[in-house]
């Protein structure tokens, strides 16, 4: 596809993008004094790897149907800051629009939506547990349309407590949806505390395996090289009559020392001083949005 962006970057460049994305995230949530920095920071490597290396897509001419493009669905919609930043940095819309996040009349709603026609977003998410189903549906249509492109979906680990996720997991295996790569942000935290304390997931890898999925366990979800390698491995496992699941261990708040390792920054914005501290830890590599 000649329209597709050339996404191949070297590792150093991907890390530079990730640093800028993290700056965007903390600035966005600070600016509107709300939003979810923790999970956004934790998933930055995954998003940058997907959009700047792994997926094939056309950001300049966004089309809802995404025919002959790889598609991405965000099920845990509350980590919209990282997605918005990456979409803007990938060319879906002007980076300066990031400054409108969560503000009145913005296309960058608190949780992602198609309602305001933001390029790059194909379904609303926020109420948890629904994204996997939508991704499976889109993947099956790619099969009907005889496309060889893939569908990616990200969920939270706390989100696994929603029953619909398991309805979808059962379905994807039964219908052999093997053009789908799901990932769980396995950071072990949710709003009320550690996942193990709130509602433990038990042997999550074992559960997905028992449901019929091909499961990859990734230990270093904040190591760009590890993320790239895992996504490439996942791609190599598609087309084998099984859906693919990546359990991606990440650290919530990664990149900003005082936000790391705690559920406390799940849905809290930094104040002025905290923002200043955070930005000293994140190099401005591509230019901050205005």
């Amino acid at each position: 596809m000649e329209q597709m962006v050339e996404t191949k970057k070297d590792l150093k460049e991907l890390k530079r993008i990730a640093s800028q994305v993290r700056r965007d995230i903390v600035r966005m949530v600070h600016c509107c004094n709300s939003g979810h920095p923790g999970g956004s920071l934790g998933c930055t490597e995954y998003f940058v790897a997907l959009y700047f290396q792994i997926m094939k897509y056309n950001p300049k001419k966004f089309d809802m149907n995404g025919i002959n493009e790889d598609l991405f669905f965000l099920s845990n919609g509350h980590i919209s800051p990282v997605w918005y930043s990456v979409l803007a940095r990938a060319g879906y819309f002007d980076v300066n629009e990031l400054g409108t996040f969560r503000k009145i009349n913005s296309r960058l709603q608190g949780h992602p939506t198609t309602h305001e026609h933001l390029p790059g977003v194909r379904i609303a998410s926020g109420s948890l547990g629904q994204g996997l189903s939508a991704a499976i549906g889109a993947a099956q249509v790619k099969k009907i349309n005889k496309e060889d492109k893939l569908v990616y979906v990200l969920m939270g680990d706390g989100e696994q407590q929603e029953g619909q996720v398991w309805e979808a997991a059962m379905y994807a295996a039964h219908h052999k949806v093997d053009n789908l790569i799901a990932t769980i942000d396995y950071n072990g935290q949710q709003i009320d505390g550690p996942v193990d304390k709130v509602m433990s997931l038990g042997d999550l890898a074992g559960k997905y395996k028992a449901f019929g999925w091909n499961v990859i366990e990734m230990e270093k979800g904040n190591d760009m090289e590890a993320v790239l390698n895992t996504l490439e491995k996942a791609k190599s496992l598609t087309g084998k009559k099984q859906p693919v699941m990546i359990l991606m261990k990440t650290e919530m708040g990664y990149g900003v020392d005082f936000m790391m390792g705690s559920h406390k920054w799940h849905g809290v914005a930094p104040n002025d001083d905290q923002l200043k501290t955070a930005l000293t830890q994140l190099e401005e590599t591509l230019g901050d949005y205005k």
Partner: protein
Amino acid sequence: MKKYTFTEKLDTRSGFGAGLTELGKKNPNVVGLCADLIGSLKMGDFQKEFPDRFFQVGIAEANMIGLAAGMTIGGKIPFTGTFANFSTGRVYDQIRQSIAYSGKNVKICASHSGVTLGEDGATHQILEDIGMMKMLPHMTVINTCDYNQTKAATLAIADHHGPVYLRFGRPVLPNFTPKDQKFEIGKAVMLNEGKDVSIFATGHLVWEAILAGEMLETKGIDAEIINIHTIKPLDEQAILKSVAKTKCVVSAEEHQINGGLGDSIASLLARNTPLPMEMVAVKDSFGESGTPDELMKKYGLKAENIVEAVLKVIKRV
């Protein structure tokens, strides 16, 4: 009173099944999904003819709604099928976020609505679905009255871009509307022009309204009867035009009195031209087991109840 005749009694759900199969031939983008109720929804022919475009979801309605939303991405027109209860109340949030708010072109097709599902009882007899669905922004809500109309509506909604709730049912009823009729979403159907009262009926109650019209004629009352197959968008013009002449209104539906067609009409009248109105509907109650006819009688949904409501409302003019 215009005479309505029929050659056979059929179920509205079979109209849906026939419509869907015809659609499958006409439109390669139509896909079907069903949550373990293929027989009840009459989706078997579609499944047989278009196995590549039919998806058995199992007893997992939430997933079915999400799948359908996802299948619109890539250009498909998904038709989901299950009972009305499991099509709406069970999956309200999924419809709200993944279909309505996301503006997805999904057709939620719901059989076994209302009390006429019969013996299964109140767990399966949803009477709140019209209300839930019409509250969702941009959702089109259709409740058809017989086999022919249901088939026509099934075909028509494929050509309408946007989410639709299509409500039909289990019992056999007179199939009295024209074969191969053109179904116009949001356009009320005049069944009998009259001057003394406007009866607005939807779904299974349309035939009861015709019977009521005949009974009223013997009492010297000339009833205008209008089939409101589309509850949203409501044909406000047709309703206001009718009541300008008759000055009183009866609504009739197999649904809760709260949130149904009657509510929509009452709201329209209150905002435009307040007039005496009576509602034939289920009065804030769950259903129960019984035959469809016994239930229609017990819950006050028969032609006799419409006649009673008309006599009452006329006195209030």
